[in-house]
């Protein structure tokens, strides 16, 4: 009896902690969504209120869709994110495979060098990156963003994936070698499917900062043609007047695609975990 009660208190406390964290985390999202559906006056009068028939307004969304090329911005963001993730996963996995599979001189040093990128923020090099992009004629192109984000995502990807690849059975790779698979076939057909959960983790960790980034789009690709969603939303924020309806609506729309991508990857993640457990 006593045991049952204490465990109830304990699980109650755990749930309390988790629920309050969830509320804190979701609160800004909630505020953004709710206010994006209200008229300008209603936003300022009572920011916390849920839209009622009298305060409900789609003016923010109308502004966003009317002004500027928002579908273009979405497209730009998606292109940049998807290409960056693809390149990070491909090159990260290849580098991780080399580091974990082959014994060569400087292996450890190379691993440390690649991991260094986790500790040093890439933004420290902004000026040099900008100079480089100008010299290469890549300013105001999506390629510039993809290149920078790939570089930004690789260190963590290599770090996580090489740890996972060390756990892939040597026997399996050797069986492949005896059966005549090339090193590429071993990498793509045996190793990659086994580290899929880790790939999904890396994809999620890589995707969110890229989608949300404002810094590099602002510096490397501020042109109308190459604007990303986060940068596009900034045009409603003025020095003196901010169109809050439009900003909030743009941000609400910007959540959607990233949510979809997240759901796709996290399903992979769960499937990977269960397939390992049932084995």
């Amino acid at each position, binding site marked *: 009896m006593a045991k049952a009660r204490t465990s109830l208190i304990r699980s109650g406390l755990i749930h309390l902690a988790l629920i309050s964290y969830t509320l804190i985390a979701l609160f800004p999202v909630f505020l953004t969504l709710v206010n994006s559906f209200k008229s300008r006056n209603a936003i300022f009068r009572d920011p916390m209120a849920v839209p009622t028939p009298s305060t409900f307004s789609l003016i923010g969304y109308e502004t966003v869709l009317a002004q500027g090329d928002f579908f273009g911005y979405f497209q730009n963001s998606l292109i940049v994110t998807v290409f960056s993730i693809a390149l990070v996963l491909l090159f990260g996995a290849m580098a991780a495979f080399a580091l974990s599979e082959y014994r060569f001189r400087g292996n450890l040093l190379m691993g440390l060098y690649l991991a260094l990128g986790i500790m040093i923020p890439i933004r420290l090099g902004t000026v040099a990156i900008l100079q480089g992009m100008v010299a290469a004629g890549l300013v105001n192109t999506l390629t510039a963003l993809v290149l920078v984000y790939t570089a930004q995502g690789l260190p963590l990807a290599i770090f996580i994936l090489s740890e996972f690849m060390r756990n892939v*059975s040597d*026997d*399996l790779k*050797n*069986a*492949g*070698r*005896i*059966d*005549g*698979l090339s090193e590429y076939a071993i990498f793509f*057909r*045996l190793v990659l*499917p*086994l580290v899929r959960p880790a790939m999904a983790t890396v994809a999620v960790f890589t995707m969110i900062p890229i989608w949300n980034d404002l810094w590099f789009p602002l510096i490397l690709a501020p042109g109308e043609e190459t604007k990303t969603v986060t940068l596009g939303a900034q045009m409603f924020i003025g020095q003196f007047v901010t169109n809050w309806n439009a900003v909030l609506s743009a941000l609400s729309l910007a959540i959607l695609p990233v949510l979809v991508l997240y759901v796709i990857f996290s399903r992979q993640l769960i499937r990977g975990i269960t*397939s390992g457990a*049932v*084995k």
Partner: protein
Amino acid sequence: MGSLKLTSITKAFGNHEVLKGIDLVVEDGEFVIFVGPSGCGKSTLLRVIAGLEDATSGSVQIDGAEVASVPPAKRGIAMVFQSYALYPHLTVKDNMGLGLKQAGTPKDEIETRVTEASRMLSLAPYLARRPAELSGGQRQRVAIGRAIVREPKLFLFDEPLSNLDAALRVQTRLEIARLHRQLKATMIYVTHDQVEAMTLADKIVVLNAGAIEQVGSPMDLYNKPANTFVAGFIGSPQMNFIDAERLGDRQAKTIGIRPEHIALSRESGDWKGKVVHAEHLGADTILYLETEAAGLLTVRLFGEHRYGADDIVFATPDRSRLHRFDAGDKAIAAS
């Protein structure tokens, strides 16, 4: 078809020398077992033969041809791993057929060979399943099937039974023995389990610390161990080693006697002692004696005996079965 010749193979990882000059000849159709404690280099040696590791020096010849620069897939070998190492995303049938497919064998030929191998291993009902849907014993049979299908010159087994439970281990051991008779293929098998070695091998290679201690048939090793290491490694329970001086033998340093070659009596005998512990296994009774003359002795009696702790007994060794070793731990030939 299927002989192997190793000439002064060495292998070093950095400064650590794992294999220190291995010379060995395996005849066609032989079942050879590498046995030794963990870390003795037996698996590394197998990997060198397979081409998964390069030897630091020395030569490997399969069927008289040097294979140093031949990749594993072209050496005409097949390997069975301890962890089965089946491809998780392929069905049993594709697992077995992949090697042939990579080698460009025609489809119907693959089909015939896979069918034949699955018949031999009674795997036919499982051909469409994936490895995750099979039990441990079935997985190991698939791994063996994958080796058979390739029709290799050399079968290499790397501790294939270590992951199986005791009952399955005996069953699979019989299966491997049967396969060897049926296929008449050359097989090289690595294990740390001396029972597997004694029951399967035509020829046992005892390895210790990267060097060969002795090569011989199971009974050779049991009856004429070349040194104390082999004498202690082969046979269970372990051979008793007695300081020769205590027994008044001045030529030898150590005297060895196997537990099953000691007779026991309550009335009279050579060495008087007290039973420290008794293990009753039904078929045998194993007694640990503390004797004045010879120190701690293990005695193995066949059948059931009513000895218990603290009994006073007399042990008499079979004089014709004594092993004598010199100061360098080498056996002294019987005079």
